[in-house]
């Protein structure tokens, strides 16, 4: 069942009404049935996988705890690991590794072909297997006592708000909540509904709208110019963010209405200052999972340098593979691993460079860092979204070829921008070194703004020249107005994210007058209804 389907819109109020109507003691039964129903609506047969995973980890957890000898504990842990990874491997990775091995066999003239498994990828398998794995590992480490109540444990594995696309919850957080008897809490329910609305807005108004353009360009590689690939990549960056964070918001809001507190999965990732910070803000439940169960057990950063780099790189490589059984995802993960390793290598140089260029002007330095991080993350998305590696390289090639094939006028504008930036930095440096009177300080400030004006002019002009260099229309949307709506909603999202980052917008909203708050809610609801794309487009992260 999709969150953005009528089926869910009917299903959820029924579950919530029943949840608050029945006695708290039996709520877990309702939620378990509801969760299994939620999953079975997609494919009823695959519930057997969730039940298998639940049974194995339930008993593994108890036996790990009961057993006194370390090697026996290890055996039960191994049983859990092998069965969960076995499920994941069979359904998600078998064909990928089979194809790769077949390719290698062919290269060496070995005429042996591994068979192909004709199975449907179970929705959310990567999420619930990782969630149950974290439980058995925690029990093994002695960080958690095993759950004896099978019903609570089964609900922990299959809890419908986060079953198919996370957040990947830890047993230490979610399992204790299964035992709690939540009362109807007005504030919590209200905030849950608001968070769901915001999630729906991101999903159906922004992500699904952008999907049309992105799919058109990325599924027809070879038919468009560099500018289309740039626009499609930028759109994809926002599509995947709004799609996945939208899902998380709906999941968290849904759970919150019923009293459950799910972990935050996104924290404005495109405002990160470096890639390391980006991963502290993007899919937090997964990155912390990899940190706690892979990176730290490998030794983390408390090892020799080369080993640290290896640990980082391998963690991101596997994170890439987690996202999908394809080389494009592996390259995407490797690229992020490379970013992080090179960030450590170049840390001192970058520090010196930053000091030399920006001096005490921290805001300019922050701004440039955000821009670079965004550029790196967006560049990596090309591999993530491309249908295959060949397409990804074709897209990159097209982007740069068109960039280098511009008329002289374009480069003159770029040179103009560069000169203005140098002048701006020079002015900054001068202001730092020379003691200035208040009047001179104001003059310098005015000078900076004056330099910004021609810079903006050059940037806009360069963009216009670049846009004109294609004969294919830029607006590929079926309904032309969608391009403008897409741009406006992206700008709105950026403004909201900046305000949230700087002034904690959601806290400020509390002090707004009631009519203003109501108006904002009505506006969001109206835009969901009027601007939303309600064609039940799958959430991107379902495929992982």
């Amino acid at each position, binding site marked *: 069942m999709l969150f953005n389907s009528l089926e869910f819109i009917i*299903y959820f109020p029924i579950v919530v009404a*029943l949840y*608050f109507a029945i006695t708290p003691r039996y709520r877990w039964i309702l939620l378990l049935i509801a969760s299994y129903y939620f999953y079975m609506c997609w494919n*009823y047969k695959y519930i057997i996988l969730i039940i298998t995973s639940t049974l194995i980890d339930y008993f593994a957890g108890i036996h790990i705890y009961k057993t006194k000898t370390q090697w026996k504990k290890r055996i039960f842990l191994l049983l859990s690991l092998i069965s969960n990874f076995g499920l994941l491997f069979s359904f998600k990775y078998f064909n990928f590794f089979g194809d790769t091995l077949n390719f290698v066999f062919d290269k060496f003239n070995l005429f042996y072909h591994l068979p192909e498994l004709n199975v449907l990828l179970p929705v959310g398998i990567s999420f619930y297997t990782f969630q149950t794995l974290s439980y058995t590992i925690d029990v093994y480490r002695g960080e958690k006592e095993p759950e004896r109540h099978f019903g609570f444990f089964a609900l922990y594995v299959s809890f419908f708000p986060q079953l198919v696309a996370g957040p990947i919850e830890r047993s230490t957080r979610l399992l204790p909540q299964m035992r709690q008897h939540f009362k109807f809490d007005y504030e919590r329910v209200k905030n849950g509904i608001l968070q769901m609305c915001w999630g729906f807005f991101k999903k159906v108004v922004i992500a699904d709208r952008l999907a049309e353009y992105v799919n058109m360009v990325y599924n027809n590689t070879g038919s468009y110019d560099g500018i289309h690939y740039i626009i499609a990549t930028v759109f994809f960056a926002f599509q995947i963010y709004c799609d996945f964070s939208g899902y998380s918001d709906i999941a968290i809001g849904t759970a919150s209405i019923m009293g459950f507190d799910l972990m935050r999965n996104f924290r404005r990732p495109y405002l990160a200052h470096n890639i390391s910070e980006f991963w502290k803000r993007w899919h937090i439940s997964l990155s912390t999972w990899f940190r706690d169960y892979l990176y730290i057990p490998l030794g983390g950063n408390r090892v020799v340098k080369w080993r640290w780099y290896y640990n980082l790189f391998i963690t991101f490589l596997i994170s890439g593979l987690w996202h999908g059984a394809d080389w494009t995802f592996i390259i995407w993960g490797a690229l992020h691993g490379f970013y992080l390793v090179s960030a450590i290598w170049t840390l001192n140089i970058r520090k010196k460079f930053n000091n030399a260029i920006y001096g005490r002007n921290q805001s300019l330095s922050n701004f440039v860092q955000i821009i670079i991080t965004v550029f790196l993350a967006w560049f990596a998305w090309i591999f993530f979204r491309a249908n295959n590696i060949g397409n990804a390289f074709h897209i990159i090639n097209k982007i740069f070829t068109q960039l280098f094939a511009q008329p002289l006028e374009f480069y003159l504008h770029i040179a103009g921008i560069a000169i203005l930036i140098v002048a701006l930095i020079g002015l900054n440096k001068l202001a730092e070194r020379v003691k200035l009177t208040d009047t001179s300080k104001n003059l310098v400030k005015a000078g900076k703004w004056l330099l910004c004006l021609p810079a903006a002019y050059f940037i806009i002009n360069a963009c216009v020249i670049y846009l004109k260099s294609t004969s294919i229309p830029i607006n590929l949307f079926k309904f032309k107005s969608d391009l403008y709506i897409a741009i406006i909603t992206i700008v709105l999202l950026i403004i909201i994210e900046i305000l949230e980052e700087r002034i904690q917008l959601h806290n400020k909203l509390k002090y707004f007058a009631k009519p203003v708050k109501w108006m904002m809610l009505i506006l969001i609801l109206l835009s969901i209804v*009027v601007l939303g794309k309600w064609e039940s487009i799958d959430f991107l992260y379902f495929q992982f």
Partner: protein
Amino acid sequence: MNEKLLKGLIYFSGIVCLYAFIAIRSLPLFNLVMNEKMVPYYWDKTRYGELYYFNFIKYFKEKGLPPAKEKFQFTNKQASLNEAKIITFGDSYFDFSRHKQFPERIADTLNVKVYFYHGDFPLVVFAKNKFKNKEPKILLYERVERYIPYAFEKENTPYFSVDTRSKLRKTFANIKDDIFYARTEELLDALLKRSIFTTGIYSFISKLKFDLFKYISPLTPVYCLGKERPWLFYYDQTNGEKTSFYYHHSDSEMNNICDNMADLAGKLKKEYNIRLIYLPLPAKYTLYHNVVNNDEYNNFLPRLYDGLTKRGVEFINVYEDLKNSGDILYYGTDGHWNEKGIRITLNKTLEYFKNDSTLGKYF
């Protein structure tokens, strides 16, 4: 106060949703809240033109469609395969419920027993019904042009799969189907758009979206708000697929279609003593695309006629008659023909029967 109100709202919406959840599984409860009732075999959603119902934008509401009639296929006038002198196969043009249906007209005009089957693959239908025939019969096989490429993409064979599941497994499957109802989304969508409580709101929002952003259903992407009437065209006639006005069928594709049509005619003659007469109909966009553009027709029907003539396959050519009639023969916001369109085709069919002296022995 706020808390009580919110809690009340949650319980209220829970009850409403529970009703919807049950209603899509129970026809009486479903019809209780619907503007237009669903009958067991089909949707009666053509009061304002079936294409209007994809949008609910009032500008595309076509008025003046006659009220729905009971379908010939489900009346006692429908003869059995054995009794019938004329067997008819066809799509929704033949049993368009807003007019007296084509097979019924043939039965009444010629005063013969007529069997109608909505769909394709006569050999499969005959095999399923264990139909064995010796006496001469006619099979009038209607298909609108957009369906022909798929209906005759492969050779027609009498093979079909038989459900060999045990009774217990079938019961289990039925229970499963009731719980995880496959048509949930479709029927909830119908409830949202057409229930007495929501249709007004839905229609208002659709109109607003059209006025502001020109949003229209992807199922009817080509439209025209003409002075005399609005026009909507179904997407499969206007996209790049095989069903479309724009798709250029290669010679080998055309030959394949014609070969399979000829093959079917041969098999029916040999195995059932049935004389097959095709009635290919032009799609709405083929006849009326000029209300939105002057694009060139892919000439599917003339090429099909040529191919069938070369193979000695019988067919009734109504394309030219419909095209040159000078009247509007199809509804603007429905995919089907109107009374005039039906009459022209019926007259042409009767004329065909009349002009062929060898047809006498069939009825």
